[in-house]
């Protein structure tokens, strides 16, 4: 297990920093990767992992710091330099050409040819050999990639990296879309890579997996390296503690509100894009937090409930009416309002005005005989702009010209304008400034006091703990548990979201068996 200590690291990053505007994404991070080592990079969303990997791949330059590969300075000018340096990235969103075959994808950019004429036989042979090497001979070189499962696609990416003579392979959440069985096979492949002295940087939120597969770890929090060491002998709870740090739940205005009768109940709701059925209730005046990792099924649940994704079974009862399978317009008319997590892509029409965006879901007050009454619309919107403290030149300004925080306020104002009684907020504070965040927390509290029901999806645990009455945790497509907030703490939530087990009094800390 132990390698000769003299072996220099393959990769050294020292004092690497990067800022985007006022936010410091990376702050003097130091990182070392040994030859044939699997190194887990751990941290919450926004901790700086992807920034660090982008710098490593050459996609963005660091503001400060040095990098060395095999002891030689490494300063990539672009992704091409990263490739040449032997660094291969395997991203969550796969970078394959769906129409091309397995062989064509793997050999893309390094075709075997004579004066431009393809030597298909040679390429197929090479691809077949490589597929056998990673023990996936069942994948045919001739099949089009879009017909493959996610797991098989990942194998194709890995083989491409291998044939590219990669020495450092970065895997970003490789198992998030894989079945248990495919994950198992991925771990076998990682073992093979190690055997060939390829080093792997393994990014994952699934800590148990990281523990099993990695030799060592580095934890990032708020752009800083807060701990690293050998995985052997490290407890899960140590990692969790490092991830969440000493965060407090202050800055969260507490608005007194009373929880009333149940207004929304899901019973075994199953959707086309949900992996397991979900049962939940939400009451008037209640703020229900939804925790879980990205891809854990939170968003899919909201979308199915609202009618954006197809429902396949179970029931949704809104104030006594069965709504399962309803279309979004029907959901809105029953008082549901959804704030999309994808503000720019789906939440707002960036090229349209503040006024149109705010009133888009309900034009009725400004309509007569099918004609819009812009004067009325403007007066109403001006009022909302004041109420929500939106910084804008006026109702006619394009929403795309506003800051992220103000855009989010417009999106939220739309829900209030349409008089939604049940607000489904998907990551409402993502990517917005601190002041706007604080205002949004306060409004959510106010809304609860007015008797509205709020479902608040967030990846940021402190805000869930800070403002919610109850928190439900999702893990790998299913609801793990829902409890009153006082019964949760940050490590417990993190454990439930990353491991899928809820009870903090359970022996969460397990030494690595293997």
């Amino acid at each position, binding site marked *: 297990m132990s390698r000769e200590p003299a072996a220099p690291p393959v990769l050294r990053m020292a004092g690497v920093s990067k800022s985007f505007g006022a936010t410091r994404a990376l702050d003097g991070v130091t990182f070392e990767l040994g030859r044939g080592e699997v190194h887990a990079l751990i941290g919450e969303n926004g901790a700086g992992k992807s920034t660090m990997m982008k710098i490593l791949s050459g996609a963005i330059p660091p503001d400060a710091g040095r990098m060395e590969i095999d002891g030689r300075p490494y300063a990539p000018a672009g992704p091409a330099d990263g490739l040449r340096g032997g660094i291969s990235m395997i991203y969550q969103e796969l*970078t394959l*050409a*769906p*129409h091309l075959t397995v062989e*064509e994808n793997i050999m*893309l*950019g390094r075709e075997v*040819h004579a004066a431009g*004429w393809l030597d298909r036989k040679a390429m197929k042979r090479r691809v077949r050999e490589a597929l056998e090497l990673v023990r996936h001979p069942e994948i045919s070189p001739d099949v089009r990639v*879009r017909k493959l499962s996610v797991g098989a696609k990942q194998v194709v990416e890995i083989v491409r990296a291998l044939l590219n003579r990669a020495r450092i392979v970065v895997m970003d959440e490789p198992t998030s879309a894989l079945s248990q069985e495919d994950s198992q096979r991925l771990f076998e492949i990682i073992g093979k890579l190690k055997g060939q002295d390829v080093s792997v940087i393994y990014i994952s939120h699934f800590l148990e997996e990281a523990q099993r597969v990695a030799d060592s770890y580095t934890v990032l929090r708020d752009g800083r390296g807060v701990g690293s060491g050998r995985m052997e002998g490290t407890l899960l709870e140590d990692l969790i503690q490092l991830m969440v740090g000493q965060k407090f739940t202050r800055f969260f205005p507490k608005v007194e509100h009373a929880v009333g009768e149940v207004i929304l109940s899901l019973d075994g709701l199953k959707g086309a894009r949900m992996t397991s059925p979900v049962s939940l209730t939400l009451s008037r005046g209640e703020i229900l937090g939804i925790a879980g990792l990205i891809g854990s099924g939170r968003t899919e649940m909201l979308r199915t409930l609202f009618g954006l994704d197809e429902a396949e079974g179970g029931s949704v009862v809104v104030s006594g009416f069965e709504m399962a399978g309803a279309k979004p317009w029907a959901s809105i008319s029953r008082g549901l309002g959804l704030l999309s997590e994808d503000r720019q892509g789906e939440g707002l029409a960036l090229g349209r005005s503040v006024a149109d965006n705010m009133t888009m879901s309900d034009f009725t007050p400004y309509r007569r005989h099918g004609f819009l009454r812009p004067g009325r619309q403007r007066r109403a919107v001006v009022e909302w702009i004041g109420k929500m403290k939106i910084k804008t030149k006026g109702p006619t300004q394009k929403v795309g010209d506003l800051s992220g925080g103000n855009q989010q306020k417009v999106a939220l104002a739309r829900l209030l304008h349409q008089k939604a009684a049940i607000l489904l907020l998907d990551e409402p504070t993502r990517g917005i400034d601190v002041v706007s965040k604080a205002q949004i927390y306060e409004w959510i509290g106010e809304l609860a006091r007015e008797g509205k029901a709020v479902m608040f999806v967030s990846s940021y645990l402190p805000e869930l703990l800070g403002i919610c009455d109850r928190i439900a945790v999702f893990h790998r497509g299913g609801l793990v548990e829902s409890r009153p907030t006082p019964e949760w703490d940050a490590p417990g939530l993190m454990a439930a979201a990353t491991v899928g087990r809820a009870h903090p009094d359970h022996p969460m800390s397990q030494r690595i068996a293997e």
Partner: protein
Amino acid sequence: MSRQRPAGLQKALNVLGPFIGLALVIALFALIPEVQGRFLRFANFKSVATQSVIVALGALGMTFIIVSGGIDLSAASNIALSSVITAYAINAGAAPLVAVLLGVLTGGLVGLANGALVTRLRLIPFIVTLGMMGIARGAAKWIAGNQKIDAPMTWANEFMARSPRPSWLLLAPGVWIVILLAVAMAVVLRYTVFGRHVFAIGSNESAARLCGIRTSRVKILVYSVAGLFCGLSGVMEFSRLTVGDPTVAVGLELDIIAAVVIGGGSLNGGEGSILGTMVGVMIMSFLRNGCTMMGWPNYIQEIIIGAIIVIAVTLDRLRHRGE
């Protein structure tokens, strides 16, 4: 990986799909007693083939563009411009060979300009070629002085001859040129690194870039080659008309695009084949021919061809379902 249709059947469907459409169209007219006799004659097939030449040449280049995920709305204007240049050169006393080469080259330059604008200005091909559609058409009218250019008869007018000389050719020289080029382009698209890169760019451009493919260079080449085909098509247009007419082929770019799409090309890129495109061209030509024989007015043809486009693409979608 788990669920798949039998691979053989799937493959057969993919290859035969457009042929089935062509067979249906031919069978349809072959079964109508009024036209049966005339429709099925070799002479008729010959004239259908000749009438297909201009669209077919444009469609060969368009296949490359569409597979790469682009579009070329300037194809028909480019054909008109090239035909005018050819006529102009012959009229000015140039040798026919020089005139023909000039015509082809003109098309290539327009294509090069399209490619350069698409890659350098990072504009979408729809906009660039929409602009070029106007520019090329305007240039053609300007050069021709807003009228037809008469040119003395030379061998350059033989390409589209109904009865070719020497007679053992059987088909017009233009038809043979299309067949040879179609085979050549099919080989390029399937068996060369260039062809594979064209598919890769159309399927996932960022993946192609990530794999080190010089996407701009490939795209410029694609538009330039397609331009050369339009140029050759323009020469054929001149050959057919024996004059350089700047107002010819208006709207023909849509026929060209339709042929590619009927033949299985996807406007999202990554899909299409030369064989399919050629079948698409034939489907449209036989439809026109049959409708004319039936004495159906032009508007009926337009409605039928419009419907065929929608049906072909819908069937194509069904064929690919579950992938």
